[in-house]
């Protein structure tokens, strides 16, 4: 018997991951002034003295942003603070017009929540910074000489969601972020578009010997603006930390910038003073103490959330877990599905679900089905035609192609293109002709060589151009040959 000694080089580590998510709210106007929100408009066309930080201006909070933030707090099962206050977070940066960001500090709007199997540490409200456009160079932070500040984004209402370090793999982090994204989207409080920055995610990553409860030194990863980058960034950082520890080194607490082009992580460590944000209560704002009416309104606005929907679709309709989650996480698909299901109570839920999540998605990609020419009623009708054996599965896919391209009712398309299953009389004649034309095969079938049946059925299918059900055809051939 050999003894295994674990050396640092062989020891297994497990990642400990927490996420920090910034969500731009989809209000009409900014957090503290009446400028309209915008994305992609001409720079500096959505500004006013308040969001430019002019002397003498004062912030007034947007009621709808607070409503949305309360909805998020409730959806994440947080404890809502009976009274929260805003703080000033002080630092100098050209994208921060006042030299401080109005945020929340020790008394956030809500805390101690949960989504799925991840605990939510806190949820708070703040204002977004403006955008720095690095002039001249290629958008990299290094190298460019001058930058231009665009204050259109400055002051956009932002909700920050901080999780507990409950995630233990890059994939799990990605999966959880998808659930969060689906939940926020379902709430209708944000565009949650990672490309456009309305959903942004930072990760706190540390590793520890597998099975232990200690926490290692964590690093903060910034700028992972897609699910793929998030997973890749975390994976790269976990590997980097493992290599440091295996080499006998120590992980340094620092902020790292993920470069999506190269997949490399670079340190953003400041050579200057360590950060000292000098938080203090924002004297220009009064406390926020959600009234019963505000809470009731936020509660009433909560739709069924993805996690609950997936569970319901699985439990009540017997859908497979993956299908149920797909329908729930892409709530537009779920809505389309449930609407189609309601249009025709006779349809089998699982069959319909598969038509939505496989066939329809294959034809629409990421397009919202509501915006496609396929209506839920039409898809339900198509699935019913298949179930009633009025059209074959392969013909139905052709019908769906036509619907996805130009709309229309399935029955009409079937009729127009002659895709309906051949009628009994027509089929009988075809069967008879096929038996006559294939005497050898008939002989073999009679003799008990089952695979010879294929030649006869193939001939029939060729003649019907797929408008016949293979099983049914086989049954008829056997009947005709008296093999019933």
């Amino acid at each position: 018997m050999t003894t295994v000694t674990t050396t640092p080089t062989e020891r297994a580590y497990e990642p400990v991951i927490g996420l920090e998510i910034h969500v731009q709210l989809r209000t009409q106007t900014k957090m503290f002034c009446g400028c309209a929100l915008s994305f992609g408009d001409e720079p500096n066309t959505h500004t006013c003295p308040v969001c430019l930080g002019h002397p003498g201006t004062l912030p007034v909070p947007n009621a709808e942003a607070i409503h949305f933030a309360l909805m998020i707090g409730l959806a994440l099962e947080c404890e809502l603070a009976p009274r929260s206050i805003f703080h000033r977070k002080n630092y100098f940066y050209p994208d921060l017009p006042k030299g401080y960001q109005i945020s929340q500090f020790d008394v956030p709007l809500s805390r101690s929540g949960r989504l799925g199997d991840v605990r939510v540490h806190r949820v708070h409200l703040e204002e977004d910074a403006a955008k720095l456009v690095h002039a001249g160079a290629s958008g990299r932070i290094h190298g460019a000489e001058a930058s231009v500040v665009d204050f259109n984004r400055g002051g956009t209402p932002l909700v920050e969601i901080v999780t507990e370090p409950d995630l233990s793999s890059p994939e799990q982090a990605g999966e959880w972020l998808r659930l969060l994204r689906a939940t926020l989207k379902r709430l209708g409080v944000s565009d949650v578009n990672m490309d456009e920055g309305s959903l942004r995610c930072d990760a706190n990553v540390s590793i520890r010997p597998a099975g232990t409860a200690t926490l290692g030194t964590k690093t903060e990863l910034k700028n992972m603006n897609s699910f793929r980058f998030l997973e890749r960034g975390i994976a790269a950082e976990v590997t980097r930390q493992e290599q440091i520890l295996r080499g006998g080194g120590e992980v340094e607490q620092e902020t790292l910038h993920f470069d999506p082009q190269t997949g490399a992580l670079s340190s953003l460590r400041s050579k200057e003073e360590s950060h000292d944000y000098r938080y203090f209560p924002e004297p220009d704002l009064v406390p926020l103490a959600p009234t019963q009416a505000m809470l009731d309104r936020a509660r009433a606005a909560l739709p069924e959330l993805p996690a609950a929907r997936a569970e319901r679709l699985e439990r009540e309709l017997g859908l497979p877990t993956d299908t149920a989650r797909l329908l729930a996480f892409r709530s537009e698909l779920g809505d389309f599905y449930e609407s189609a299901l309601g249009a025709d109570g006779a349809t089998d839920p699982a069959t319909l679900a598969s038509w939505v999540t496989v066939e329809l998605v294959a034809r629409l990609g990421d397009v919202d089905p509501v915006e496609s020419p396929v209506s839920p009623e039409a898809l339900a009708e198509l699935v019913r035609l298949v179930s009633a054996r009025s059209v074959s599965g392969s013909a139905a896919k052709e019908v769906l192609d036509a619907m996805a391209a130009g709309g229309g009712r399935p029955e009409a398309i079937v009729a127009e293109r002659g895709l309906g299953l051949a009628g009994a009389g027509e089929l009988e004649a075809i069967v008879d002709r096929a038996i006559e034309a294939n005497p050898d095969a008939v002989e073999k079938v009679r003799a008990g060589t089952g695979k010879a049946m294929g030649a006869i059925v193939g001939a029939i299918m060729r003649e019907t151009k797929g408008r016949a059900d293979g099983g049914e055809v086989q049954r008829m051939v056997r009947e005709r040959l008296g093999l019933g």
Partner: protein
Amino acid sequence: MIDREQVLHVARLARLDLTKAEVERMASELSGVLDHIERIAELDLDDVEPTSHVVTIENVLRADDSRPSLARERALAGAPDATDSGFRVPSPAAAAAADGS
């Protein structure tokens, strides 16, 4: 008391480039003021709530209705260095970018 090192640290936080003479003077002047201020250290304030706002109102909010923004020329009018479309600044060093949230 506040010493020279602390003055330099605070001046950096506040983004004030002080001359040598200013640093010396600041250290002595601020120490004088702090001596006076530090008398509040003698008070027993353990069970006292801090006051941030003397007004007792809550939930002063604004309806989510948009108001006209400034025309861009006006927004940029007072800028010491503007392009046609924005406010020009020296590019931040990578180090300082970590300040952002």
